[in-house]
């Protein structure tokens, strides 16, 4: 269970989180937003890596400031830019992490081996990580999350830079985690594939929360038309949302007409403020 009330995080001249309030006990909660929306800051605050400036953040009822150690006992957090150390092997990484989480050596080795098998790294378990591909390196951290036995797992952009097949492999692991998963992503299809609940962030604020269908409710019955009218500007393109019937009249006029997808949330809730 994640609960956040008026959560703020400020740096010298910059407010990264501007009073966030939401709660969720969805098995997989996805936080989406553009670069700089505050997603990583929120993840770091929730997983006790970063102190908030004010407000309240609870993980399974434990306060991330006053009960940080209790939070740490139940969470696993994989940072966005985490990379494996080149000279250590996947097995060494996972075992080290599991001992940090308090497991015995025996438990750590057993869990590490099982998770490395599950993510498809078993053959490479003793190879130095600098000999692994980008996707395999990312999977080392997925194996850590899988073996962690944590109640809440924070995954900050776990599939950024992965090829489609590797992304699907990561998704299958995420779906099978017994923990509540909180993940951030830029990929809307990832949010749709993995989670029932989405928090949309923009410039340090929560601009919308809900399921993919409730968030897309304003666009029900509409299609996306690019290059038409005075809609939203995205780069050099104008995007308008028109009723299907009206859009049918534009077919053949050279406009790009597409069905609504979760990507349109970025346009609806994010870009319009620019």
């Amino acid at each position, binding site marked *: 269970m994640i609960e956040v009330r008026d959560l703020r995080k400020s740096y010298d001249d910059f407010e990264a989180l501007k009073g966030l309030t939401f709660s969720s006990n969805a098995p997989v909660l996805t936080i989406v937003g553009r670069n700089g929306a505050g997603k990583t800051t929120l993840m770091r605050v929730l997983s006790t890596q970063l102190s908030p400036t004010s407000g309240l953040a609870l993980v399974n009822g434990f306060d991330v400031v006053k009960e940080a150690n209790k939070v740490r006992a139940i969470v696993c957090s994989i940072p966005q830019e985490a990379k494996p150390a080149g000279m250590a092997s996947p097995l060494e990484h996972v075992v080290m992490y599991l001992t*940090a989480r308090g497991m015995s050596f025996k438990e750590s080795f057993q869990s590490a081996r099982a998770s490395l098998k599950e993510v498809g790294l078993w053959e490479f378990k003793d190879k130095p990580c600098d000999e692994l591909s980008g996707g395999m390196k990312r999977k080392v951290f997925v194996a850590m999350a899988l073996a962690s036995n944590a109640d809440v797992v924070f995954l900050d952009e776990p599939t950024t830079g992965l090829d489609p097949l590797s992304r699907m492999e990561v998704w299958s692991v995420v779906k099978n985690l017994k923990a509540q998963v909180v993940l951030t992503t830029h990929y809307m299809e990832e949010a749709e594939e993995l989670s029932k609940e989405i928090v949309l962030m923009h410039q340090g604020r929560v601009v919308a929360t809900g399921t993919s269908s409730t968030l897309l409710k304003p666009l029900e019955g509409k299609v996306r038309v690019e290059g038409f009218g005075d809609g939203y500007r995205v780069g050099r393109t104008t995007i308008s949302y028109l009723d299907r019937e009206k859009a049918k009249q534009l077919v053949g006029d050279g406009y790009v007409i597409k069905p609504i997808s979760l990507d349109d949330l970025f346009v609806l809730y994010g870009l319009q403020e620019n």
Partner: protein
Amino acid sequence: MGYRRTRFIASLAWFYGYSALKRGPVYVLSYMVSPLSLLFLIYVISKGALIQYAVLGGLLATIVGNSLTSIGDFAFLRLEIKLQDLVVATQVNSLDYLLGLTLGNLIFSVPGVATYVALGEVYHMFTLLNSLWTLFSILLIMISSSSLSFLIASLLKHVRYAWGLAGFLSVAFTIIPPLYYPASVLSPSLIYPLMLAPSTPAALILQSQFGLWNGSYITPLVVLVVETLVYSALAIKFSRWRES
């Protein structure tokens, strides 16, 4: 210290020290080449007369050099590969993390230490008593220098500063203090400021114990113990762990 914490420290040392030793032998050669070159130079110039200084100096320089160059590693682990962030979100504290990395550094330094112990044996330098003093001094300078490295690395905002700083401090702490030359050539007015570097009191203790310096080892011993405590405390108190 609980078994749980000891287990993590051992595991991190294995992860950080043993993996580097096993898979990066070129780095072992890299940290050994400078002290061994100096040993060669001192041997040739002094026609062997100052070889004992070179052996003790090389032994201490290996430890201090590796501990201080780890500024780069510590900063890299924190800023580039986010290992520190990963560990902060567990029940591990900064002291356990520091001890794990220090022990890892000690493991990584074993080939260098073994080389100098072997050279010391060749020149019949070691007795049981001075061996114990050597071990004691090595442990203290490793802890104090690693603490300084951890503190400095934790305050850096960018990795690009780390390697240069590490190289600079490593040379400053191993070449300027009396590691490779007799402490007797220094006036007290020079020795005292040099004492700020833990390598200076460690060198004075060993030169005294090995009969290479007439001064008393008591003052350097007190300084080294105090520095180890102070630098460790500073590292625990002021290093950036959970970021604010």
